[in-house]
């Protein structure tokens, strides 16, 4: 089982505050060196040259949105196995279904607590040290 500090994570959200809050909570959980990108396009560029274990992405972003990013990540053999968690505040069943079909690992509903974040991550990675 990995320890949190081993998991290289990338947070994708067009809102700086959301990214920073999430990064700050993840740091609390022991994550280190969390990368942040502000949209799907930048995220894909980053993934191109940086191996990542976990992407936590917002759903609704301009340009390449969370779903398109998930699909792109899954279709690239280099990143196909990357864990993907979608961060969303929208109760949009259709998008959620599409994300499940595209192979999302888990969802994190906004607003969330640190405990909820931990639980969401552990559902994917197992107990996080």
């Amino acid at each position: 089982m990995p320890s949190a500090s081993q998991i290289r994570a990338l947070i994708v959200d067009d809102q700086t505050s959301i990214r920073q809050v999430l990064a700050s909570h993840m740091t609390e959980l022991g994550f280190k060196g969390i990368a942040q990108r502000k949209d799907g396009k930048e995220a894909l560029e980053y993934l191109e040259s940086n191996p990542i274990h976990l992407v936590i992405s917002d759903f609704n972003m301009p340009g390449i949105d969370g779903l398109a990013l998930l699909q792109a990540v899954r279709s690239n053999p280099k990143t196909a196995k990357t864990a993907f968690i979608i961060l969303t505040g929208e109760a949009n069943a259709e998008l959620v279904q599409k994300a499940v079909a595209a192979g999302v690992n888990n969802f994190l509903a906004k607003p969330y607590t640190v405990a909820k974040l931990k639980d969401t991550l552990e559902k994917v990675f197992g107990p996080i040290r």
Partner: protein
Amino acid sequence: MGDDMDDILNIFFEECDELLPELERGLGELSDNETNPETINAIFRAVHSIKGGAASFGLERLVRFAHVYESALDCLRSGKVEPSADTVRMFFLAMDVLSDLVAEAKQTGDAVDDQRIDENLKNLEGIIQQGDGASPAQVGESVVPEGFTPVAVDFGGFGFDETDEDGTSSQEDDAAPSMQRLRVVFSPHNELYARGDDARNLLVGLKELLPEECAGEMDVTCRQDNLPTLGDISADDAYLTWEVLLPGGKGGVTPDDVNMVFEWVSDVCDVTITHEGDETVDEPNAAHAIMEVETQPVVVNEEEKAPSPLPEEKETAPLVSKPPRKREQHASIRVDIGRIGMLMDMVGEMVIGQASLESALGKSGALQDQELLKRLAVIKSLTRDIQGAVMAIRAQSVRNVFQRMQRVVREGSHLAGKDVALILEGEDTEVDRTLIENLTDPLTHMLRNAIDHGIETPEERIAAGKPAQGTIRLTARHRSGRILIEIRDDGGGINQKRVLQTAIKRGIVPPDAHLSEGEINELIFAPGFSTAEKVSDLSGRGVGMDVVKQAIHNLGGRVSIKSTPGKGTLFTLSLPLTLAVLDGMLIECSGSTMVVPVSSVVELVTVKITEDVYVIPDGSRVVSVRGRCIPLIYLGEELTLPDLGAEDRAAAETMGAADDSDQLIVLVVENEAGARAALVVDGVRDQTQVVIKSIEKNYRQIKGVSAATILGDGSVSLILDVSTLIVSATKRVDTRAMELHAERAA
């Protein structure tokens, strides 16, 4: 909340400051029937983002409202609700509430009235009902569909292999005979690192060759036998050799695969690929054969190898000497405005300091030294550049303010029963932030005024042969160190007769006043002037154009009017680019040094009292300069400065060219409206940059003086308000009398 969270909260508020105008822009487009999905999505996203951020910080009231707003917008987005005029208006109202709730959270605004929130919530819920007949999901309600099981990751594909606590890899001796392993030995040269590449990338590349079922079956050994003792390590040299064992054979990695990985670095890295049985398969760089000396291997844990970065220290190739790999590109950074303000203040002090240095050096006679003079000039120009650069940091485009005006016009024309289009030009023009903040109110008022009094009703317009829809053009542009904002309407123009009548009726001007067209237009800025027959919802809120003029004046700007009957009216706001510094001409008058803004100086001339100065019947004086008669202002008298004795006057005169008592030095100045006056001064001392210090803050407003400054020698000097001086002088001088004298002079 810790400091960290406080900082992030501020970032959130800054985002709101960007999201709210975006929302407004989107809604504006929507009300103009531009219902493309991208617009609707942008509107939705703005509210969604505000909600999301607010939720992270526990801003309950904001979240609750934004949530319902978002749900209503979702109905619009999914096409369940049409963007009818009523719906859009409700969205606009909700936007105001949202904006006020943000201000409330920010503690820059008052608490929002609960009743107002409830009313708007009801509106929004009505839209939702209309859309899907359901009430919105509760905030925080799980979005995850029932029956969804989170998918645990397969660590194998990841590189956290099941490593035992002692760090030995469990696959160490797994190599089945059929899977003869490939041994890849590579030694990067210095150049590889110099190029910004990294051995780690090669290891990652090799790892990626592994077929799924063999994931993690890669042994890496770092040979450090070439590593010198610490004292002998050269920071720029590479010493390490890596040995990697990969599953080969059928279904494994082939030498060709490996060659692909090294293709890009073949010139800067020695590679040998052999089968584990030592049979050489491929040697792309035969020239750089590697000494295969077995040494104490350092086993690197798989999980440390990749993708997590390899500890750089092991390679002793220091980070500093290597060009950075991929530098993070950031288009902008956020800086607290207070810091920039501080920087601006310090630059202001630096300008003063530099001037004072120059002044002190001048006194000591050191400025005779050409070398010193040259160096001083360099510092002077640098100071100017720094000042420009700091100003550029504070600069913002007028876009947001301008965009906000779309709504002002939309609502205004709706209320006035007129059809008015607002055309924006030059929205990218950049202005100091302080100016932008203070522009909204005056612009709003002027636009309302243009709709109320400028643009005619559709019927009147058609009767006048104009299109039923009126047009207001709001333009911003830079001109010679100032920003000009024009508000041009194609309405009926200013009704001069009515304006004059009203002004007489209100006692603003005497009944027998003879005023030029320009002066009549100026009357609408007079306090207590209002020509609106009925007090309308729009401009009749007890504030007149005098308030606008005062607001612009406070920003160091001027308003001027040009009006053509039947064609329309043009208001021009001329504003300084910054409120902090101006180019000033230092003049001497009655023993005081004063500053005249260079931007308002037309020319400096000497005139002969006996030939060029005329006293007109009302007792005031005019001077003929290049055939044009302009009012003469004795600055000392005007500002009621103590008259100097003959001795002092003589002393003052030696400063300038006025060695003849018949001669006057006059500074011809001009305001934005083109009105001129001649200031009689004792002499001109210098031209320099001065830092503007508010006089009202420290003392009170003084007529004819706009601000004060500190000169290089440390003395305080007043900055003249040229426009006020000109206006008061022109009022005194009867225009017709001036024209009469002009004829005589010619």
